[in-house]
């Protein structure tokens, strides 16, 4: 009896060794929100490229439909891989895929935002549950990217700026499919989020509020891949 168990343990142990020596790595991404290479914090002053002083109170967005493309071209869609990232809630910056492995050089694809099919699929669960404050009610659809804060440059009430970027109907789609190569030598993979890039083409004195789908939202959405330093 005892001897049998010993054999079993040996087998497990060897399997474990084999796994740890293989090139496959478990997918784990950490998002690093930065403003001009400074770590971003709530209600702290920053200065944009256009010399607007700003503070952030809310920054939440969807990253969805992750997929791995192997070097040989085969693709694997990771089921239910939908994340609602809240930059000021530390644990949501960690995207963990315990069942997904990859090799160095594989490509990772995902959406910034929620695809059309999920915008028209009724009430969904988990990160996509409409009770997460990222769903419009008067016009169905997800807010893909929500950024709020204040700046003395904004002529609005309490100097607030509010950017709620969403919309899935042509020609004003706001969801962006992006990809980057997983060649970071160390784990987990860090994905810098350059929030200063958001304000590159925005003059806060003229533009401080977008809360509906449409042309303005789609123009801003086009700049989102640059925030993540990923390719469209």
């Amino acid at each position, binding site marked *: 009896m005892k001897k049998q168990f010993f054999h079993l343990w040996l087998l497990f142990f060897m399997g474990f060794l084999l796994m740890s020596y293989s090139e496959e790595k478990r997918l784990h991404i950490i998002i690093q929100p930065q403003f001009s290479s400074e770590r971003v914090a709530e209600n702290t002053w920053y200065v944009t490229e256009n010399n607007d002083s700003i503070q952030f109170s809310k920054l939440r967005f969807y990253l969805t439909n992750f997929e791995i493309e192997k070097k040989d071209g085969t693709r694997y869609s990771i089921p239910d891989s939908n994340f609602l990232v809240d930059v000021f809630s530390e644990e949501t910056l960690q995207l963990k895929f315990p069942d997904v492995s990859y090799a160095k050089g594989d490509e990772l694809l995902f959406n910034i935002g929620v695809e059309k099919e999920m915008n028209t699929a*009724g*009430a969904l669960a988990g990160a996509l*549950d*409409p*009770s997460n404050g990222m*769903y419009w*009610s*008067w*016009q*169905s659809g997800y807010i893909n990217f929500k950024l709020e804060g204040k700046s003395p440059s904004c002529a609005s009430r309490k100097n607030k700026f509010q950017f709620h970027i969403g919309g899935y109907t042509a020609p004003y789609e706001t969801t962006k499919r992006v990809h980057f190569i997983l060649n970071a030598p160390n784990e987990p993979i860090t994905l810098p989020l350059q929030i200063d890039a958001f304000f590159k083409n925005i003059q806060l004195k003229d533009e401080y509020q977008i809360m509906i789908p449409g042309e303005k939202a789609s123009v801003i959405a086009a700049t989102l891949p640059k925030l993540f330093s990923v390719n469209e």
Partner: protein
Amino acid sequence: MNRIKTYSICFVGIFICCGFAVIQHKEVLFDYPEYWPKPAYDFSKLSMTEEEFQLGRHLFYDPILSRDNTISCASCHLQATGFTHVDHDLSHGIDGNIGTRNSMTLMNLAWSTSFMWDGGVNHIEVQALAPITSEDEMDNSLEAIVEKLNASEKYKTLFYRVHNDSVVTGQKTLLALTQFVVMLNSYNSKYDKYIRNEAGGEFTAQEKNGLELFRTNCASCHKEPLFTSQDFKNIGLAVDTTLNDFGRMGITANKSDSLKFKVPTLRNIQFTSPYMHDGRFETLQEVLQHYTTGIQQSNTLAPELKNDILLTPNERVDLLVFLRTLSDTDFLFNKRFNYPNNY
């Protein structure tokens, strides 16, 4: 070895007990006449159980959905009037606030491809979010509702009966409401019995003439058997300058959608007064008056209304008599749809 045996007996015992604890669900059937088109709604997310139907019914009639527990869905959607707000041109909600539109009827919603007068809502499961979050209706959020429901022993029990899990989520709340409203089907009016050649469906000469007039003048938009084409149309109503409501254009931002509103069903129309998106007409006589003599020309006017609709006084009466055959008392007085006293 003995120990293993004891453990396995215990395990099997626990397993059997679990079997008894699992709730037996009673199925609900989604029924409709076989000659009707297939519903647009995909039922796959619903449990189609009596338990979920009753949970949705409780939610529908419970003011817990509003910010201050005063307004329920039924406040503006009363069963006896085809689930709409009788006698109010614009519906009112929380704090006595008055909204900007006439509440719509709720019936045969599984065939509906968009919701609200402007079609802003794209799916029945997320429709409830509109009145829940409207400042003039329930002025609440789904987050706050989920929190309230999770603190309620009654609802934890009702959700447990459906999901074998008492934790309430936004999705489960919306699905339960859907399970109730999607069952509000009307297909037993005198007109339906006439079409099916059933007892009680014998049309008088006047009703038959009314049906003919209806098919000639109205049915292209109010398409049988649902009495709506699900389309958006500008029916030539003058703009109410106190509201400046341009309908569908507010959603699509497309000028060609200016003044277009959803074509509503005409089923149970005898009881769903007042009429139009802003409830401007109190009687069906006024509605016919509009279609025959009141059409305002504009770029987006429905092509169906470009030519005048001509009706003699007698023909108008026949048409009105026909519209009464769309009343379905089986639906309006169905005890399964009323306030849940008995569950």
